[in-house]
């Protein structure tokens, strides 16, 4: 204890009590859950499932929208890599994560929601995004929130890219796409439909108009050729993408009587189910590997088979048969699976003498797609791969031409929606850094690194609970219409399904405690700067200061009454206000060097931007323990500790020296 008489007789001053013991409880999560790590877009899966259990659907949706601006779309067509990594699979089946996401997205649709206000433009720079698919839309959403001007150019008369042109409406109703695109345009994004960049408006012209950065997200809309004899000789070939685009634009003409779809991806299954709905008598799918290797979603294959699609596994086209210039059928050969190839899948090997013929009048090849690069000028200098996709830096997504970025299917070749969303996020981050003239290479993220982190839970004594299945439209109703097949969970079903989540790790990271505490006692922070750099897979620490002294300044008033007898044996009393030692920043003196931020053991110091180009360190006094290291390291003397300011020390000096 401080010697009271010496300093306090002269004047009443506040006493301080150094507190250096730990008074912060941390709720620490060492690793992010495996579902979040598996998601290319890094959605906080466990957190929103936790919120659904609590019935907080709006909060769950808000949390999803932080990482994924298209929850309704992803909730329907996502390939859900999160479910494959779910730790519940060790007990029974994975949690229906995708369907739960769809549930909250649909829940919002049912009630009237206030439309979002346009976001205020902060910077003058404009960005052009070529292609309005999931990658382009996500990037536009991210950039408009950073205050840039964003214009999206779309060749087709409707927005959505492959979402609208490629995915049939029985899987993804058009209202959902329109609604989610509307949510993005409401923020101020301009979408120019029917404008083909390169033809209608050149890149040079756009640069003159003031566009500083370009994101090429044109997707992969050109089907690959089969390379079998007879392919170019007969009528009756429709490329899968063209077929789906025509149907999705409203052309519901029957393509033919008997249809063969070649391929095993989701678009092949989409084409076959669409053909059935248009009234074709028989639809075959020919795939060269077995069902296990088929890239399409399992549930899609099951539904297609239920609807009547006949799938020939382990079969490959050999020759197209024709009659009078029209397709009459296709000769196929049986295959067996050999050794695994570079992609890890077993390579199909033809079985000699097992040829068979399927009769058909329409053949829809759906083997793979490549980007349609007709929009580029002939003498362009973009570096392209041998599949006509853009070659980019794997971390920054920058092409070889400065200011041009590429992502989505145009960069990776045909891929999933959620990967495109992830690309959109990465490109938005790169464009932001590019326009701020920061080093692009400083982004230290590589997705493969992050994916290895996943949290593995030890399963012990978990009881299996049966997975909830959402209801489906009856087969009869399906075949005559393009009505949505998968129906939504009911509220009770959703909560029951969410309860199956094992909540790997101690905390679900829903951050509701932070939002809910009115006294600001719970804080969320990154324990490591690196985690923040990596971006969307951070670690969490929740700090719960329990010490009343650490309350916000206006709330902490602890008074102590001290009494003593003076020399004349008279009783003296003094009321003291106790105040902990904390450090504070003189904002006018701070030049934002960041030394204090590095040195602070308790992560109480953060650098906050005040205006363009100027950062100032800020000390969270409820975390600060007043150790004084930052005071010592501060080169400008901007940081001072309470009770140790020059004025206070002078007061102390004066009071002890003038005393007789």
């Amino acid at each position: 204890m401080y010697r009271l008489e010496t300093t306090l007789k002269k004047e009443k001053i506040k006493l301080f009590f150094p507190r250096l013991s730990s008074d912060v409880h941390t709720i620490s999560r060492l690793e992010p859950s495996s579902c979040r790590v598996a998601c290319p877009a890094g959605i906080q899966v466990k957190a929103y499932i936790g919120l659904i259990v609590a019935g907080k659907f709006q909060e769950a949706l808000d949390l999803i929208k932080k990482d994924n601006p298209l929850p309704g779309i992803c909730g329907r067509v996502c390939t859900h890599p999160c479910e494959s990594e779910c730790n519940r699979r060790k007990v029974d089946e994975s949690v229906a994560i995708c369907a739960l996401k769809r549930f909250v997205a649909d829940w919002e649709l049912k009630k009237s929601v206030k439309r979002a206000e346009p976001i205020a433009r902060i910077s003058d720079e404009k960005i052009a995004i070529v292609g309005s698919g999931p990658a382009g839309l996500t990037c536009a959403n991210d950039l408009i929130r950073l205050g840039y001007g964003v214009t999206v150019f779309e060749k087709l008369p409707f927005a959505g890219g492959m979402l609208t042109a490629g995915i049939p409406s029985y899987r993804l109703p058009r209202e959902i796409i329109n609604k989610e695109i509307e949510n993005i345009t409401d923020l101020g994004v301009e979408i120019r439909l029917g404008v083909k960049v390169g033809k209608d408006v050149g890149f040079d012209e756009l640069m003159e108009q003031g566009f500083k950065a370009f994101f090429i997200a044109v997707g992969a809309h050109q089907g690959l050729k089969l390379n079998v004899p007879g392919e170019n000789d007969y009528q009756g070939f429709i490329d899968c993408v063209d077929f789906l685009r025509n149907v999705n634009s409203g052309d519901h003409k029957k393509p033919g009587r008997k249809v063969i779809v070649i391929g095993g991806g989701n678009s092949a299954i989409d084409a076959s189910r669409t053909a059935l709905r248009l009234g074709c008598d028989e639809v075959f799918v020919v795939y060269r590997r077995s069902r296990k290797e088929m890239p399409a979603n399992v549930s899609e294959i099951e539904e297609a088979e239920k609807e009547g699609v006949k799938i020939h596994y382990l079969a490959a086209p050999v020759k197209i048969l024709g009659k009078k210039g029209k397709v009459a059928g296709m000769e196929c050969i049986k295959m067996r699976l050999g050794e695994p190839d570079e992609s890890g899948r077993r390579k199909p090997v033809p079985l000699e003498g097992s040829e068979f013929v399927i009769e058909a009048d329409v053949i829809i090849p759906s083997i793979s797609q490549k980007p349609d690069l007709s929009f580029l000028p002939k003498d362009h200098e973009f570096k392209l791969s041998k599949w006509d996709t853009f070659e980019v830096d794997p971390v920054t997504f920058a092409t070889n031409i400065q200011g041009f970025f590429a992502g989505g299917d145009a960069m990776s070749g045909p891929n999933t929606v959620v990967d495109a969303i992830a690309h959109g996020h990465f490109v938005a981050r790169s464009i932001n850094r590019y326009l701020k003239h920061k080093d692009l290479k400083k982004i230290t993220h590589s997705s493969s690194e992050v994916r290895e982190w996943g949290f593995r839970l030890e399963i012990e004594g978990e009881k299996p609970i049966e997975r909830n299945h959402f209801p489906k439209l009856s087969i009869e109703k399906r075949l005559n219409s393009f009505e949505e097949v998968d129906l939504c969970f009911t509220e009770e079903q959703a909560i029951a399904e969410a309860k199956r989540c094992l909540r790997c790790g101690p905390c679900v990271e829903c951050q509701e405690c932070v939002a809910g505490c009115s006294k600001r006692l719970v804080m969320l922070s990154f324990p490591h700067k690196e985690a923040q750099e990596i971006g969307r897979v951070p670690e969490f620490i929740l700090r719960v200061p329990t010490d009343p002294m650490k309350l916000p300044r206006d709330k902490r008033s602890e008074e102590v009454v001290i009494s003593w007898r003076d020399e004349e044996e008279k009783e003296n009393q003094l009321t003291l206000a106790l105040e902990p030692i904390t450090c504070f920043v003189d904002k006018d003196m701070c030049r934002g060097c960041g030394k204090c931020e590095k040195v602070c053991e308790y992560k109480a110091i953060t650098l906050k931007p005040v205006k363009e180009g100027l950062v100032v360190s800020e000390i969270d006094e409820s975390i600060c323990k007043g150790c004084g290291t930052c005071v010592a390291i501060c080169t400008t003397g901007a940081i001072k500790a309470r009770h140790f300011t020059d004025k206070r020390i002078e007061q102390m000096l004066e009071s002890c020296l003038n005393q007789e």
Partner: protein
Amino acid sequence: MSEEKKDFKPKVVAFACHWCGVGKNEINAVEDFPDFKLIKLMCSGRINSALILKAFEKGADGIIAFGCPEGKCHYNFGNRNAAEEYKIAQSLIHLLGIEPKRLRLELDFFSEDGKLDSVIKEFVGGIRKIGPSPLRLINENK
């Protein structure tokens, strides 16, 4: 020794680092030496020449600063700062005509019994011999 000097009660200010052990012994030290005024700081690095001059200006006869030994500072470099500032202050007070003996920096741990007492006894004894600070005399004559 003159009459005046026998009555002389030196005003000694001590700046103490929170970590070097002076903080723990402070009550003892102060009670044994009533002339001794202790000002506790978090680190000896907080001391600067301006502060030392201020203390002399306000009438201190001697100033002693305590800090942790070389390389043992709680904040890594606080006592190094203190040593530098001490050097500057030494030359400054020399210019002002104040004896260098009136300023002292002790970088050591003081948790052992009697260690602090002996240091203080020695220092205060020294000040007693020299007499009041010239600055204090000027102030009092005014």
